[in-house]
């Protein structure tokens, strides 16, 4: 047993660090480190910079233009990028539809879609949740009826993250209404420019416009956009969720945001002294840091298992729960450090990013989402109870 990274791994991390320091534009870095929402154009710009270095798809195999890193290197890459203030790469193409196409796509689909993901030519969004199908995803009712060489799609998707920028949406649709609910689902790729696709923003409690409703009214989709076999969609959906869960611990982001809390605590005062010297605040900061240290090691244990055995397994649910809870607790620390300074709503920042109001309160409020999305923490506890504890 050895918890240290190898010399090769450390050299790799140093190489990433040097590249990010040199290549990450200052205005992007400053916005991210200040805790502002990252505008869409920053995300695309950074994605193109990484692509130029050959690192656009850090989790992909060489066969598809990825660097072929093992999970440990993927983790080191993510951590270096996050600590340096890089925006998070969008998961919808890289971690979701990409791996699905590699596994289930036809050669035509693979060659058509995969190369355009790391290069940021295509922006993907996820058409999973519906108003009547959240945690119970298999209850989805968006209907696709085959008419010759096309499907006619009708229904509504919701919580579609950054769908307003998307070129494509991958959708779970019902193709058989008679079968058991998991067995009548298919996986369709839909061009967002298709006639009948309407995107309506959902404004969130922090003013953020990051999720949308997507209405599909008599949308015609060519049958060559079906991934896998008809009615095989649930298998694909589960495969996708498994991939989504790798990297879910958010260790890098949590370290970055905890450092921000610590910095703020040194700058802010409480009762005439730096907040960092307040023993109660310091104790709460310490508790969160200890939780994060444990998450870091637990994450490495899961990564090592994924590297050695090929799958992170149900332990990944623990990473999702702790990673999201810690993220929220850090946002509380930041909110408390800002005190009354968190009250103003920075409309100018909203105009600048075109996305959200700024500030600690917005950050805190926005992060309520992390225990809900990606499989709510309650669903993750169900998974642990069933697959780890055999209850």
């Amino acid at each position, binding site marked *: 047993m050895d*918890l240290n990274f190898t010399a090769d791994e450390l050299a790799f991390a140093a190489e990433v660090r040097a590249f990010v320091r040199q290549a990450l534009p200052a205005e992007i870095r400053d916005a991210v480190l200040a805790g502002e929402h990252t505008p869409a154009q920053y995300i695309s710009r950074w994605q193109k910079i990484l692509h130029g270095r050959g690192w656009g798809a850090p989790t992909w195999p060489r066969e598809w233009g990825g660097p072929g890193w093992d999970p440990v290197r993927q983790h080191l890459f993510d951590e270096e990028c996050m600590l340096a203030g890089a925006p998070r790469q969008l998961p919808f193409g890289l971690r979701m539809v990409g791996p699905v196409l590699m596994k289930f796509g036809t050669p035509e689909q693979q060659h058509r879609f995969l190369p355009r993901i790391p290069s940021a030519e295509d922006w993907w969004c996820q058409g999973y949740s519906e108003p009547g199908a959240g945690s119970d995803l298999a209850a989805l009712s968006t209907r696709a009826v085959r008419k010759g060489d096309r499907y006619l799609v009708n229904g509504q998707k919701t919580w579609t993250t950054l769908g307003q920028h998307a070129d494509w949406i991958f959708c779970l649709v019902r193709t058989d209404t008679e079968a058991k609910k998991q067995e009548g689902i298919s996986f369709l790729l839909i061009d967002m420019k298709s006639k009948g696709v309407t995107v309506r923003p959902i404004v969130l409690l922090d003013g953020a416009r990051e999720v949308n409703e997507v209405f599909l009214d008599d949308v015609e989709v060519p049958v060559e956009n079906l991934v896998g076999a008809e009615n095989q969609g649930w298998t694909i959906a589960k495969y996708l969720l498994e991939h989504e869960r790798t990297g879910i611990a958010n260790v890098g982001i949590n370290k970055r945001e905890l450092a921000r809390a610590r910095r703020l605590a040194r700058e802010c005062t409480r009762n005439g002294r730096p907040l960092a010297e307040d023993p109660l605040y310091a*104790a709460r900061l310490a508790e969160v840091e200890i939780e994060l240290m444990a998450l870091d090691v637990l994450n490495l244990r899961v990564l090592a298992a994924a590297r050695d055995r090929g799958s992170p397994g149900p332990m990944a649910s623990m990473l999702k729960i702790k990673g999201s809870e810690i993220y929220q607790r850090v946002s509380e620390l930041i909110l408390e450090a800002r005190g009354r300074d968190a009250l103003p709503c920075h409309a100018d920042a909203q105009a600048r990013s075109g996305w959200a109001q700024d500030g600690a309160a917005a950050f805190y409020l926005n992060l309520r989402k992390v225990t809900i999305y990606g499989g709510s923490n309650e669903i993750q506890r169900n998974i642990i109870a069933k697959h780890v504890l055999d*209850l």
Partner: protein
Amino acid sequence: MDFSLSEDQSMFVASCERLVRERCAFEPRRAVAVSAADVAPPLWREFAGLGLTALAVPEEAGGLGRPLIDGVLVAQSLGRGWLLEPFVDCALAAASALAGLPASAARDAALGTMAAGASIVVPLIEARVAAGTVRGTAPHAGYADAVLFANGSRLCLLSLQDAERRAWRQFDGTAAAEIACSLEGEVVLAEGAAAAAAWAAARDAARLGRIAEGVGLARTVLDLTAEYLRTRRQFGQPIGRFQALAHRMADLAIRHEQAQSLAWAAAMKLDAADGARALDAAQVMLHRALRAIGQEAIQLHGGIGMTDELSISHYVKRLLAIEIELGDVDTALARFAAAA
């Protein structure tokens, strides 16, 4: 980065698990826990036979010279079966202190007999020295052959052959004793910085070993509780099917994994610059985990968890005693925060 066990580690863990399975069932353990507190527990000889008493003793002194992480893995494995033997205090703490000292007749002799399982030496953490006598209280002191203690800036070894002892059992069944012993036979092993370093090694190894023991026993408590939730039926189904209970078990499983992660990390970082901080973090995390697991194990068992008859109540008491033996958690947390 590698979390797999080496061949040696796997072998030690396997033999400890076998020992726990074959010799540490609840009833025989309970018999030990109510036996006389001044008689060495019966399994110590078997520990020696498996090489466990020689684990941290350097090879030149007749031991196996294994790194601390091996001792942590062993303590964790032994902890699963309600550890009543002085493995942590003698084989890890005292042995680690002596191992770090330069060779000398006294040190080598002590290590040699400890490795063979022929003598039990434990640290007397809060020793009071006055009028030619050392007094203090320590687990296992009722049957220890000698104590290790700090006398001013000196690290001393003292045979307990002629000591006055008052032995008792802690609420969790662990034997302990208050001792008073003349300093006449005192052997000074080290002075100044060397003594301080050796004493720190003893304290660190004791803390780490106890943390690992807690991780091991908490695993047993979790396993028993999960098994109970699978078999106990109410309202026509196993109670583990109720989400209100299943989710709490999931949270306990997470806490346990966190505590185990930080215990291992602390064992491997102990000599690094942030080693002390890693140990404090491991203690705080273990404390949170043991409180939650101990309390919830009883609650999830319901009334039966309150009974003396069931193993759970005894294991939970040991978890609580481990917390207390580790020392004040707020102090550890404050130290961790101050070292940020």
